[in-house]
C-alpha cells in the first residue's frame, strides 16, 4: 500500500517523512554515491522538500519500503534550477497540471518485487485522481526501458548527458489510464495501490473524467 503524505496529513504520519530522509541518505548518498547530496548529517533533504511536496511512501508492516515525491513545476524546481540543459531541445514543461517526479527509491530488501511496481502504479493513480497531465523527471537513462515496459509514455526533453558519471536525461511522463492499466498488468496488481487519503481527494475533488472511464 502506498501512502500519500503532504502538508495537510503529515501530522498523522509521525516522523515518517524524517525517517524517509534518512533512508534517502542511505540509498542516494551511501549506496549510489550522489556525493553532492551529502550534508554530513545522515539526512538527505533538499530545497524541494517543502510544504508543497507530495510524498509517496510504501509502508510495509510499519516500515518504509520505498518512496518518491512530486513537486510543483510552477515553482523553481530541479529541472529548471539544476538541469535546464537536459531540456535544451523541448524546454521546461511547467503548469498546474504538471509536477516534477523525483527521488524514487526502494529499500534493498524490498527490491525486485511488488513494491517497485506499486510505487510506479501510485504515480499514475495519483496523477489520474488529481488531474495531472504529466510529470517531468530527471533520471538516469537506463530507467527508460523500465518505464517503457511499465507502459509509461516518455517524451524526451533533450539529449541525455553525463551527470556524476551516469548518462542522465529529462523526460515528460504522460499520466494516462492506459499507463495505469499496463503498469497494473505488468506488476500483477489487481487494484488501487493508494491508501485512502482521509477522503480528501475523493470527497472534495471531482474525480477526473477520462474518456476510457478507468475505474480507480
Amino acid at each position, binding site marked *: 500500500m502506498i501512502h500519500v503524505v503532504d502538508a495537510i496529513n503529515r501530522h498523522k504520519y509521525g516522523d515518517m517523512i524524517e525517517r524517509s530522509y534518512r533512508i534517502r541518505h542511505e540509498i542516494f548518498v551511501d549506496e549510489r554515491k550522489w556525493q553532492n547530496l551529502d550534508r554530513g548529517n545522515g539526512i538527505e533533504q533538499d530545497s524541494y522538500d517543502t510544504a508543497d511536496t507530495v510524498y509517496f511512501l510504501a509502508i510495509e508492516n510499519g516500515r518504509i519500503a520505498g518512496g518518491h515525491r512530486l513537486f510543483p513545476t510552477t515553482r523553481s524546481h530541479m529541472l529548471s534550477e539544476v538541469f535546464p540543459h537536459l531540456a*535544451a531541445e523541448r524546454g521546461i514543461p511547467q503548469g498546474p497540471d504538471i509536477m516534477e517526479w523525483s527521488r524514487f527509491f526502494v529499500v534493498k530488501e524490498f527490491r525486485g518485487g511488488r513494491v517497485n511496481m506499486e510505487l510506479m502504479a501510485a504515480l499514475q493513480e495519483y496523477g489520474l485522481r488529481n488531474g495531472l497531465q504529466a510529470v517531468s523527471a530527471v533520471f538516469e537513462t*537506463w530507467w527508460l526501458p523500465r518505464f517503457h515496459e511499465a507502459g509509461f509514455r516518455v517524451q524526451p526533453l533533450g539529449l*541525455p548527458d553525463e551527470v556524476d558519471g551516469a548518462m542522465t536525461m529529462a523526460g515528460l511522463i504522460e499520466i494516462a489510464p492506459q499507463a495505469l492499466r499496463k503498469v497494473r498488468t505488468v506488476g500483477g496488481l489487481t487494484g488501487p495501490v493508494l491508501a485512502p487519503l482521509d477522503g480528501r481527494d475523493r470527497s472534495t475533488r471531482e474525480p477526473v473524467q477520462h474518456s476510457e472511464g478507468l475505474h480507480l
Partner: protein
Amino acid sequence: MPREAVAAEVLRSIEDLESTTDTDTIMNGVVQFAERYGATYFIFTRIPNKYQNFRDMIYAKRWSDPWYDFYTRHRLIDSDPVAEHCFKTNDPFFWSDCPIPRGRSRTVMTSARDYGLKEGWSVPLHGFDGTGCASFAGASLSLTGEARRGLHLLTMYAAERLRVVDETRKAQSVQLTDREKDVLLLTAWGKTVLEVGEILGLTPRTIGHHIRTAAEKLGANTKAQAVVMAMQRRCIYP
C-alpha cells in the same frame, strides 16, 4: 552537422518511431543516423540465458553474415565479453573499453576484428525480465558528443519499438491459457506431474492434458521442449 541540428533530428526521429510498427522502418531510422558516424553493422537483441537460443533472441539485425554464422556456430555468445559487460553496466560503452578476461573471450574480440568489426559500441538495455543489447560496429566509428548522446537516446526508443513489435507478434502467434502457463511454470521449477497436480488441485491426467495442448500450440515435441519454448517466447517467467 551543428549540435542543435543533431539533437533536433534525433528527437524528430523518436517522434516518428511512435507510429512505426514495422521492423525495417524502425531499423532504417537508426541505421541512417549511425551510418554517418562509421557504423556498418547493427544488431538489437536480448541476451540469452543458458536455456535460450541466441537466434530466437534477436529483434533485428544488419550484421555481418559471415561473422554471424561463425559466432552462432561456435556459440560465442557464451563467452562474448560485450554481452557479459552489458549485465554489469548501465551506460553505453565502446568495445575497446570493455573488460576482456583472458582465454576464449579474447578470441571472440580478435575474431570479430578479423571479420571487419574492428570498432564497436554497445548500448545495454535493462528491462524487468532480462538484459538486452544494441550494438553498432564497423571499420572505424567516430561517435562523439551529440552524435553519441543522440544515438544513445534514439537506440533506446528504437529498442522499445522493436520490443513492442516482437511482443505483439508473439502474443498473436501463441496464446497459452493461464492453466497451461501454471503447469509449464511449475514444471520449469522441477515439479513432477504428480506434484503439479497436487499444487493446482488437479488430477495428473488433467495436468498431462494441459501439457499436451500447450506443447501443441508451441510446436514442441516433448514436455522439456515445451517448457523451453514457453520461456523463449516469454509465456512463462520461471
